[in-house]
């Protein structure tokens, strides 16, 4: 499947010899080198506390590296306020405002950019539709299941048409069936808009299913231990999980991951 090139919107990410030491002296990342291509879907796996989340926050400009550099979009712009316009972040928790309906939660990023006109309203309806929550637009988060809340969170991330989507273990708290379904939906959304995606997870099968490349990080201080290309073609569907090649690749990544725990 091919995608129409849209060079104006696409974004690559380059981390060069990035190290980050927190004030307490803990070194979270050490000499991390990573490049994510335009429109690539990259997954990152690694032991707990290896700095995966920290790496995502560096890319989003929420943290600054102690040394090294983080470039967004070609090699020109450094991560920060400017580049954040095109970035959306999905957290492990749905992180919805409980006093806002689904509709108004999804609208929030547009409000913060001062962009809620007719077009904004249309876009809100469109993304709510995309995540299959049309009938729930006026519901409040407390009335939704965990999976539905995560769909709202996804819709909110997509409403700004980000060129870079950062996902920090977004489906970790969900049951396996819901997780698989959301994986398929996320992939369909990616196939549609072809944003660049960096997806952090503990789940190897999820990483292989979703991405074009899986990066395995070492235990703290985190650096890239291995990169495993995932050759399966798109669009992918649920049957892929049952194929022997899928099992073999998942096994390979798991083995590498186990080594990283040492």
């Amino acid at each position, binding site marked *: 499947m091919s995608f129409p090139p849209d060079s104006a919107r696409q974004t690559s990410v380059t981390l060069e010899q990035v190290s980050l030491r927190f004030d307490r002296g803990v070194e979270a990342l050490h000499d991390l080198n990573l490049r994510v291509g335009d429109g690539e879907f990259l997954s990152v796996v690694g032991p707990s506390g290896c700095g995966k989340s920290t790496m995502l926050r560096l890319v989003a400009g929420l943290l600054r590296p102690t040394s090294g550099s983080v470039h967004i979009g070609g090699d020109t712009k450094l991560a920060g306020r400017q580049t954040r316009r095109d970035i959306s972040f999905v957290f492990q928790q749905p992180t919805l*405002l409980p006093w806002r309906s689904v509709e108004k939660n999804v609208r929030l990023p547009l409000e913060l950019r001062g962009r809620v006109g007719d077009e904004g309203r249309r876009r809100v309806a469109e993304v709510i539709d995309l995540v299959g929550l049309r009938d729930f637009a006026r519901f409040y988060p407390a009335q939704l299941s965990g999976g539905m809340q995560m769909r709202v969170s996804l819709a909110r991330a997509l409403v700004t048409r980000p060129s870079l989507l950062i996902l920090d273990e977004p489906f970790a708290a969900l049951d396996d069936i819901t997780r698989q379904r959301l994986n398929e939906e996320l992939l369909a959304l990616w196939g549609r808009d072809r944003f660049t995606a960096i997806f952090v997870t503990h789940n190897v099968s999820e990483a292989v299913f979703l991405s074009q490349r899986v990066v395995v990080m070492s235990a703290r201080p985190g650096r890239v231990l291995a990169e495993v290309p995932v050759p399966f073609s798109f669009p992918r569907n649920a049957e892929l999980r049952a194929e022997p090649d899928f099992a073999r690749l998942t096994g390979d990544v798991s083995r590498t991951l186990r080594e990283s725990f040492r």
Partner: protein
Amino acid sequence: MNPLLHRALALFLPPLVLFALVVIAWNGAVVYWELPPYLVPTPVAVLNVAKENRAALWSGALLTGKAALLGLLASLVVGILIAFVFSQSRLIQRAGYPYAIFLQTVPIVAIAPLIILWFGHGFQSIVIISFIVSLFPIITNTTTGLTTLDPNMVELFEVNNATRLQRLLKLQLPGAVPYIVAGARISSGLSVIGVIVGEFFAGFGGNKFGLGYLIYFANATLKTSYLFAAVISSTLLGLAMFALITGIGNLLTLRWRGTR
């Protein structure tokens, strides 16, 4: 059985049964120990006095309730403003907090005469005393609400380049609503106590008396049945205030609980 009736019974029957038992025990104690009416009147005597004086008790409750509502309202406005200032800077919070605690620890009975000295005998002083005792829970709860932030929410706003003002209006203030409601519930009872205390000192003059003055008057003239009736009235008033604030609070936080 009708489920609504069933729920109402389940809610109200236990406290009503307890109330009946207490009244029976009270009556029994008065009869058994032959207590003189100026020490402990019988429930029937209290009820009769309450009926005879229902006009005075009703207008007293209205006056006291009005003062308590105004005091509570003022404490909400001022308390939220102070909490807002506290939430803007750690330094200001550290500087001001001991004085906020002062409001909590100051014996209001000792301060009340001073307030009356400054603001005169009358309604305004009573409202101010009620305001002072109601203020602290509002300040602490609102400050907690404004400063207790989910780190992910903060990051969400930051990733979207939100301004400080946007974060305040769209995250902190609405997020503080359940905390403000909790503070107001605590203060609803305190505001009535504040008014009663104020009326002890300032309730004289004019021809309208609050419950606090009726209690003071009944006590001074050893009209114990009347005293009982006034105390029970002020308790009921406190309950009504609590119910009112809880009801409003529940309406405001409906969405949090997912029942619209």
